[in-house]
């Protein structure tokens, strides 16, 4: 039995395989004049309009108003134009948060992509038993609910009874006796990176591994006969083949780490100081804790714009690809 090895071959996204057979066949039936496709997407579109676009517009509206606790309760908000954006964009603290968000995202995504590619390559080379073990372990880590995982990480790094401090101490590092990880900005930041990488690698690794299995073995063989080294094979044969999936995973991870919120909120609330405050945390702090709903809404609008900026290249490519299908 090879649990999961096949399943993922086809998993998320545009596996390169189907495109070969698709074009001549699908274009044959169904001229565009039918109502069917529109009926089929109607629930999705209506749901999105009411449950996503509507609140988003509402948030946009709030970001243009003077909207605090009083307006939330009594509902007589006044328009102030771009005043909130001006306040936000001239606040050095906000730019510090933006910078931190990008650093956080870059570190996480780089680690996730490197580690999961390595894990995927490793799984491909393992025997059946090893593969089953590693894949099952990955699945279990993946299935761990975020809140439970975050709680467990807090416990691992607990200053008094945490297993990390005790292990370090038993290795003779006495300075870790009751070391308070969450009191230090860089340490909290590092623990959050560790947690997010730990949670994200399974999805990425399994998806990449399934993409790897679609690369025909003969290609490797012939390349090896031609005397290409392992690194060379990966660069010029394997990677180009899994590139579409790699890009999909990469952009999903960018989105997910950019929006990482629950882990940070539960673990540090953005502290100590501002050390782990990234944009979504900042928006929630400003809106819910400090009750400046207007500034919080403006911050999240800016977040969306920044994130789109990062992903615009990807969207363009995807849009082109869709045209080909």
């Amino acid at each position, binding site marked *: 039995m090879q649990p*999961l090895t*096949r*399943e993922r*071959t*086809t998993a*998320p*996204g545009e*596996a390169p*395989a*189907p495109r070969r*057979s698709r074009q001549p066949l699908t274009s044959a039936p*169904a001229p*565009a004049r039918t109502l069917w*496709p*529109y009926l*089929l997407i109607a*629930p*999705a*579109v209506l*749901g*999105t309009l009411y*449950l*996503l676009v*509507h*609140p*988003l517009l*509402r*948030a946009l509206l709030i970001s243009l108003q003077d909207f605090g606790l009083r307006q939330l309760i009594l509902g007589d908000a006044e328009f102030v134009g771009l005043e909130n954006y001006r306040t936000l964009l001239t606040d050095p603290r906000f730019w510090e948060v933006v910078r931190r968000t990008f650093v956080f995202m870059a570190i996480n995504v780089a680690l996730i992509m490197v580690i999961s590619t*390595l894990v995927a390559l*490793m*799984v491909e*080379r*393992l025997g059946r038993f090893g593969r089953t*073990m590693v894949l099952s*372990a990955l699945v*279990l880590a993946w299935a*761990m*609910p975020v*809140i*439970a995982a975050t709680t467990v*990480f807090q*416990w691992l790094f607990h200053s008094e*009874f945490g*297993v990390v401090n*005790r292990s370090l101490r*038993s290795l003779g590092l006495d300075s870790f006796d009751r070391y308070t990880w969450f009191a230090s900005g860089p340490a909290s930041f590092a623990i959050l990176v560790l947690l997010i990488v*730990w949670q994200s690698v*399974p999805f990425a690794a399994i998806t990449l591994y399934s993409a790897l299995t679609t690369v025909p073995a003969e290609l490797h063989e012939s390349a090896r006969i031609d005397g290409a080294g392992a690194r060379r094979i990966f660069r010029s044969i394997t990677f180009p083949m899994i590139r579409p999936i790699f890009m999909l995973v990469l952009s999903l991870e960018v*989105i997910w780490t950019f929006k990482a919120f629950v882990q940070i*909120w539960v673990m540090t609330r953005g502290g100590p100081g501002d050390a782990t405050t990234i944009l*979504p945390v900042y*928006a*929630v702090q400003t809106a*819910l804790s400090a009750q400046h709903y207007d500034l919080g*809404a403006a911050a*999240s609008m800016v977040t969306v714009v920044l994130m*789109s900026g990062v992903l615009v290249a990807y969207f363009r490519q*995807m*849009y082109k690809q*869709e045209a080909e299908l």
Partner: protein
Amino acid sequence: MTRSRIRRIPLDAAAVLTVLVCLFPVYWMIATAFRPTGDIQSANPRLIPYTWTLEHFRTAVDADGFALFWRNSILVTASAVLLALVVALGAAFAVARLRWSGRRQFMLMVFIAQMAPWESLIIPIYIISRDTDMLDRLPTLTLVYFMITLPFTIVVLRGFLGTIPPELEESAQVDGCTRLGAFRRIAFPLLAPGLMATSLFGYITAWNEFAYANFLIIKQQDSRTLPVWLSSFQNTFGTDWGATMAASTLFALPALAIFLILQRHVTSGFASGAVKG
């Protein structure tokens, strides 16, 4: 023989390391949950507890409203996931199998919807729910979770559909089935594993969600869900890491179980071999 074995050592070591790193936090959670309190707070924690106890689980289960919140969570999660699956299936079929103008725009919308800043939409959604008298109700949560999981579900389902060759359906159509009939008879059974795999993701997201559950369920404490319970549990039983870990274990258990169960289904579905493409 021996040489290849030696060459494999780094690889095997890496595999063992991966397994350990993945499993340790999960293991430590469960092990702490079963450990007597004295052992938890001893100076030298043992990797495997000496004695096992169910006391922490008792504390967790006896806490107020545990069964109720469990039921709420399952209800909300299951309805959100199923709703998302049904809606996404239609959309994915339209995108993967039909040609129509606006298809590219639709997929772009789906991708962009993935970026929705849900944390910041709490206030607008709160206002909208208040004005439509939907506060304090589980269906509101269901709808929000449905929308959070929908874009990803569409993307993944379309990916799965793409792997099922349309030839299969076309041959059925030749045999006299309608387009949808062919899809239902031929593609759907092949897609079932895909549906299950997809539901896992939605399930995990909805099962975990905390911010909305905390903010939209205000007065009806009976409508709380497990993540909110877990967080208030931590407040109440702060020092009691054993009980907190037991609660976390109980919370994580359905996710771990469903992943393992569905993993088998998914595998067997693909093992039938019809989907080699």
